[in-house]
């Protein structure tokens, strides 16, 4: 491949965005935003979902053109017309959803779109050797011949970074890069990013995780509702201050009294030796056993794709099990989803847009789904529209759903409010057991706090909650006990008091409990 500038000294000394405005029909995604990143700096871009971070990054990467404002590269005004243009200027982007072709090898992914040194013929051996050298210079091991679909998420991310460096990226934009990593993988990533900073590269780190911003970044630009709140040095900043800047008001964290111990009765949900065949993109479940008591939140920690979805689906009756049994309140939990719901189980699915709600339906229709054949919503075969309307208005008020009205299509609501609608529907049935899968993923801080409150309320009422989350902080904040899942197996279950993040991180990465005890 044509030698990229990877060995040469970085050629980007600064990238400056000046008064950038980008409008979409009905919204101003970026309103006169200015910020600047310099060589040898990690600059955080912090903001909630919808604050305008992604739009700004797409402008830097040439996917969008700003309606107003200027981009200056090394002090010179430039127009970045396309991703290829951005790459040619030394800008690389690590997308949250990796831009890799899963069926191709690492070397093929790197070579894609580049000229071969042999004309029409591929020079994958040359590419492979360079990839190995590049990886080694960051202390990484990457097999250039491995098919990308067989790599772990962390490894895939490394391939993405190497792909960008191979193309000579001096400025790297990382979009929520730690969302899919174990704590250890995140540490490795940070080490690599710090090395790049030393080498004089410029890094833009997009995140809403305050801890990471403070740990890694030199400066932080905070966005809120498309506007720039300000740019601050991170030195001397506290998490509380950052959170206030990001949200614009105080956030009530769960208080200690919310977590007062609830008298724990005999197990309500019992899962014994549960196994299933592998799902698409997920592993097989292998003899999963745990118990869940009334008044308890069991947190299931794990890296995405380790069987969490399979487990939740099997318990909810959406996926067949091959062995094992589940009981709820002593009675076997069998049959399809409908029967399991009737037995007192509720499920907040991970893919809320796909499995949790019907996007083309109104808020009201989504609220009554599943129970719409029964009173109070139905009278015989007919919908009791008057009652439906009353009950839905009550639910919208009670669960603080921000919607113009019950007839509004649910797809026009924010992620947090869609999730509130689903929570309202599931909790209104007063379930005995709730499975909440990634309940706050992609949800803004305000709605997250509210959803946490709802889960704690359910616990206080003596309900049992299985909280599946990739956000370890969330699990540590809410759970009474913590189970760790890896490759379809429960690696360990421990009380919250005995849990430490490092040990959980190692278990998430697949370390065995024995290897950790000495």
């Amino acid at each position, binding site marked *: 491949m044509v030698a990229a500038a990877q060995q040469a000294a970085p050629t980007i000394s600064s990238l400056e965005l000046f008064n950038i405005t980008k409008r979409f029909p009905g919204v101003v995604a970026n309103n006169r935003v200015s910020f600047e990143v310099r060589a040898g700096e990690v600059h955080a871009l912090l903001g909630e979902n919808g604050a305008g971070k992604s739009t700004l990054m797409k402008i830097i990467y040439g996917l969008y053109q700003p309606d107003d404002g200027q981009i200056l590269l090394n002090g010179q005004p430039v127009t970045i017309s396309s991703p290829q243009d951005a790459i040619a200027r030394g800008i690389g982007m690590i997308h949250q959803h*990796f831009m890799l072709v899963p069926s191709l090898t690492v070397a093929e992914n790197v070579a894609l779109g580049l000229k071969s040194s042999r004309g029409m013929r591929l020079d994958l051996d040359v590419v492979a050797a360079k990839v190995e050298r590049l990886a080694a210079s960051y202390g990484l091991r990457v097999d250039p011949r491995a098919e990308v679909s067989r790599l772990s998420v962390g490894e895939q991310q490394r391939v993405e970074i190497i792909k960008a460096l191979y193309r000579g990226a001096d400025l790297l934009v990382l979009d929520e890069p730690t969302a899919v990593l174990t704590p250890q993988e995140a540490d490795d990533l940070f080490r690599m990013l710090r090395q790049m900073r030393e080498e004089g590269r410029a890094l833009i780190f997009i995140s809403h995780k305050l801890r990471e911003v403070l740990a890694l970044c030199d400066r932080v630009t905070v966005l809120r509702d498309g506007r720039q709140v300000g740019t601050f040095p991170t030195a001397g900043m506290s998490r509380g201050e950052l959170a206030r800047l990001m949200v614009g008001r105080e956030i009530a964290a769960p208080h200690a009294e919310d977590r007062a111990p609830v008298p724990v009765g005999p197990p309500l949900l019992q899962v014994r030796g549960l196994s299933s065949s592998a799902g698409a993109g997920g592993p097989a479940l292998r003899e999963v056993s745990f118990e869940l008591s009334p008044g308890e939140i069991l947190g299931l920690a794990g890296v995405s794709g380790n069987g969490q979805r399979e487990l939740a689906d099997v318990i909810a009756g959406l996926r067949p099990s091959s062995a094992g049994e589940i009981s709820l309140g002593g009675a076997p939990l069998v049959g399809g989803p409908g029967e399991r719901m009737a037995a007192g189980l509720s499920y907040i699915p991970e893919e809320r847009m796909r499995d949790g709600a019907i996007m083309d339906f109104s808020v009201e229709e989504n609220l009554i789904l599943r129970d719409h054949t029964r009173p109070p919503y139905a009278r015989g075969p007919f919908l009791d529209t008057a009652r439906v309307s009353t009950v839905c208005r009550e639910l919208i008020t009670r669960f603080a759903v921000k919607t113009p009205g019950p007839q509004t299509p649910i797809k026009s609501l924010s992620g947090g409010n869609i999730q509130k609608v689903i929570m309202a529907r599931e909790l209104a049935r007063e379930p005995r057991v709730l499975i909440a899968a990634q309940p706050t993923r992609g949800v803004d801080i305000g709605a997250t706090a509210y959803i946490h409150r709802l889960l704690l309320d359910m616990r206080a009422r003596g309900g049992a909650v299985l909280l599946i989350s990739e956000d370890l902080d969330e699990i540590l904040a809410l759970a009474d006990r913590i189970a760790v899942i890896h490759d379809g197996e429960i690696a360990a279950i421990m009380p919250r008091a005995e849990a430490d993040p490092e040990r959980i991180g190692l278990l998430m990465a697949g370390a065995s409990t024995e290897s950790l005890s000495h």
Partner: protein
Amino acid sequence: MEQLLTIGTLLGVLHSMIRLATPYLYAAIGETLGQRSGLLNLGVEGMMLMGAYVGFYVVFTTGSLLGGVLAAALAGALLGLMMALVSVTFRAEQGISGIGMYLFGLGLSSLLFKLTLGTVQSVSGFPEVPLPLLGSIPGIGPSLFTHSVMVYAAFALVPLAAYVLNRTTWGLNIRAVGDNPQAADALGVPVAAVRYATATIGGLLAGVGGASLSISALNIFQENLTGGIGFIAVALVYFGGWRPVGVLLGVLLFSFVSALQLWLQVTGVGLPSDLAVMLPYLLTILALAVSNRRAGQPSALTKPFTRGA
């Protein structure tokens, strides 16, 4: 019964197998390239029919075999280009537009046939020429290695397609575009251009495949000459797991059973001929049902690409 299984009859069946395989190979290899780039072309049959007609007509009027092949290739390529326009630029539902393309090719070739020829005519097509050395091997020489140029070219396409897909930058582009067009686009691979190219080449090969019937294997043209070959070719791409060599194996298996059933009919074994004719198709359905090759399926197959979506 024992006289049915002589070496001579087996060699005869193998000879027909190679001959029968030819149109399937052209169509299926072209379809493989298209599908690897994410385009499902169900209109292959129509493109074959147009190729068969145009090729035949040129040979019938000018006597030039090369002219016939080139004309068939051009006709197929034009239809392929049309398919690309509909499914890449206008982002039409590929399953439906493919059926439309088939009906268009069927109708147009039948109409032109009636207007220009009227009745079934014949031409002298490509002669069978033994391959040097191989052709003179006793037994299998005349059976496997004595065919027309059209047959040899079809078989040569298989390693060529495999080489292009796996060893060239352009092949890498095709595979990337078929599996994750967003990623390919972000790296500067021209997604639409790649698909236009594979669709056009697929159409071109389908056209030549049609001509391989009308000016090489059968040397006649009649309405609906191909009789479903194009559709079977699409199925064989799935069967072959989207790999040229796999597709070749599927084509050979299918043509072997077809050749066998022809011979069974000739020898008059007590099998109703309608049933015998069904055999290869039943086999195809069975093979597709038991071989779960979803793993090799290009992820973006039938999905139109929109930047940023």
